[in-house]
């Protein structure tokens, strides 16, 4: 194991500890996703060579390529989920606004 690997491991473990501590207070999709990303980075840092040969067999040249592919796919899924959640919230707001409008009409006669 090289010096840069050891340094990287210390940094990653530190961040992971902090994230897990945060997750205990409030678990949400964003924190879980971030933990997953850092666990992946940790695996890449510990066994880069072994991972490289495995990933080469499934079509990736480097572990970093696999990491980026996974990250962008997950980000896209997360973005879509956020978009749908936002739509849901907007629908709820519209319902309230419509309810208010229908119950506070001004009649001009």
């Amino acid at each position, binding site marked *: 194991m090289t010096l840069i690997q050891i340094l990287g491991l210390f940094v990653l473990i530190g961040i992971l500890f902090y994230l897990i501590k945060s997750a205990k207070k409030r678990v949400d999709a964003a924190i879980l996703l971030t933990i997953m990303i850092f666990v992946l980075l940790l695996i890449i840092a510990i066994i880069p060579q072994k991972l490289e040969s495995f990933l080469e067999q499934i079509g990736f040249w480097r572990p970093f390529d696999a990491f980026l592919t996974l990250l962008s796919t997950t980000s896209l899924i997360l973005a879509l989920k956020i978009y*749908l959640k936002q*739509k849901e919230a*907007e*629908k709820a*707001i*519209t319902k309230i*606004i*419509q309810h*208010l*409008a*229908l119950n*506070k*009409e*001004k*009649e*001009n*006669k």
Partner: protein
Amino acid sequence: MIVAVIPVYNEASTISRVVEETKKYVDLVVVVDDGSTDGTRKVLKNLNGKVFVHTHIVNRGVGAATATGITAALNSGADIIVTLDADLQHKPRDIPRLIEPIVRGEADVVIGSRFKKPPQGMPFTKIIGNKLLNFITKVLYGFESTDTQSGFKAFSRKAASKIEITVDKYGFCSEIIGEIKKNNLKMKEVPIDVIYLDKQKGTSIIDGIGIAVDLILKRFSR
């Protein structure tokens, strides 16, 4: 009873004329102010006669305003509901022609189509955009219309009660086409003339993309 529904957003300069003109052809006008900030509210306060005004305290989009208006019209006992734009684009004098197929029992929904005859004065980008949205609507809902995005429509009470509008913005027009198919309603199209006073208003290219995204999400979220 014939009720006109006019969703309005920042149309202080035209709304009064549209309402006065529309009153000649219907029994009641329901105006939904969709959170206007340009003095429309003040103009609406000065309207007299057979006019109901409903106010969205914040802007929610033309689909949401139309849905509020249709619910209000149904609550008022409407037999036929006509929706039209507040920017003088539609001619209220076309209302009798628009509702005729419903009165005769030939249709549940009538769409005032701008493309039944060659559109006059419509910007080229809008023609292409409308044709594209007609195509997307046909692919997604399997139902054909020459003008899925027209805001000038008439509904029988039965149709208005069955159609559920959930899309807040411009995509509601295509949603209505989907609802017509879903509820096995009879639809007819009547050619209409439109006037484009302000070519910048209405659906932009970005709106068009938004409508397409909304339609796809709506179609596959069922």
